[in-house]
């Protein structure tokens, strides 16, 4: 699984970080950083939740 964020859509509201801080981090510069592009499978439910909750529909999961 690969986590993909469309940074043109992302507005750094940190919803994803609230759900999966292991993977998403909004830093002091107000940009979102993906900490782990290939997170372990056990994080899938959390990442799927982040996909659903992102108000900008900016997150997707690509299968590798």
């Amino acid at each position, binding site marked *: 699984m690969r986590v993909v964020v469309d940074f043109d859509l992302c*507005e*750094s*509201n*940190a*919803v994803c*970080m*609230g759900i999966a801080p292991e993977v998403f981090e*909004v*830093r*002091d510069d*107000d940009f979102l950083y993906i900490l782990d592009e290939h997170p372990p499978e056990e994080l899938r439910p959390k990442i799927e939740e982040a996909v*659903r*909750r992102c*108000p900008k*529909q900016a997150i997707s999961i690509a299968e590798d």
Partner: protein
Amino acid sequence: MLGTVAIVGGSLGGLTAAETLRSEGFGGRIIVIEAESVTPYDRPPLSKQVLAGDWEPDRIVLPAARPERLAELDLEWKTGHAVGLDLADRMVGLGDGQRVGFDGLILATGATPRVLPGMGDLSGVHVLRTLQDCLVLRAELDASPSRVVVIGAGFIGSEVAATCRARGLSVTLVEALATPLERVLGSALGTVLADLHRDHGVDLRLGVGFAGFETSGEGGDQRVTGVRLSDGSLVPCDVVVVGIGVTPNTGWLAGSGLDLNDGVVVDDRLRAAPGVVAVGDLARWPSARFGGSMRVEHWENAIQSAEHAARTLMVAPESGAGGEAYDPVPWFWSDQYDRKIQLAGTCRPDDAIEIVEGSLDERRFVALFGREDRVVGVLGMNRPRHVMQLRVLVEEGEAWDAGLARARALVS
């Protein structure tokens, strides 16, 4: 047995409920009854990107309403107004006389903007809730009106004022309270919002009410030419946007036997009756966390409550047992000018307020709200990360002093 689920209202809440039913393995019929005939869409951009003219409607189609996803969800779609509910026969009545039977029912009819006396069919006066509202208003903004008057400096009114200013239009923003959102944020933070509008060139009229419309034209062909205010002043304008709050769409449920009180009153599992749940802007639930009952008009709550309610239906379609209580810490955002405002939890003007990072002057800060010695809310302006980090203090109901200390440590 849950054979057929009817969902009334096929927008954010209704479609999220449908998605959840399917992802939890529900294989029965799902019938969606939706009054609007356009492809379901996301509302927040209606006061922001779409109104600004930056986005076209095809960009705001809800993910669940994209053709490939809709096909997977296998929904039976009925366009029409639900006009009645018969709980004994388990039927929803439609405006055209059809009756739709159900085993489980999800109520997701959202809310409708309040209107002002005299609005009627007056041209140039708008509310903003639907895509149609947005496109009609946008067309009028495209015609470069001399002035736009926005009545109500709540979140929607404030966003509309900001979007109109970004389009270079002259804007008067009228608010009956002494500061914008005073009843939510209190006057100190309300003042920050007032200054934000003024610095962006808005003619802000605080503490004055709406008194009436000035119009030109005859009979059914009248157009607004100005707004009269309670202080006797007259603001000439070509366009008015009314943002004075919404009323939950419960009218069609009158007489159904459901408990209606500024929303559909549900239990802590979001049940309004056996096998009947309510979600989104419509639902009023009891909150053990904050005390009393809550109804919120937030995007995230529509999703969260819909997921929860769909699970409630699947766990215990008929009985009163099972499932988890719904008691979230609500989260909301609003974009105004170059500021992003976010609120987790609740706040009231009489709460204790403490700025834990940044400052009001910079318009970049995080504030904690406390009530009865507990942290109940976190408000951020251009501090999204901190709002998310501090939301946990509200979730845990942290004691006020300990919460302040933890907050300062977390954000430093």
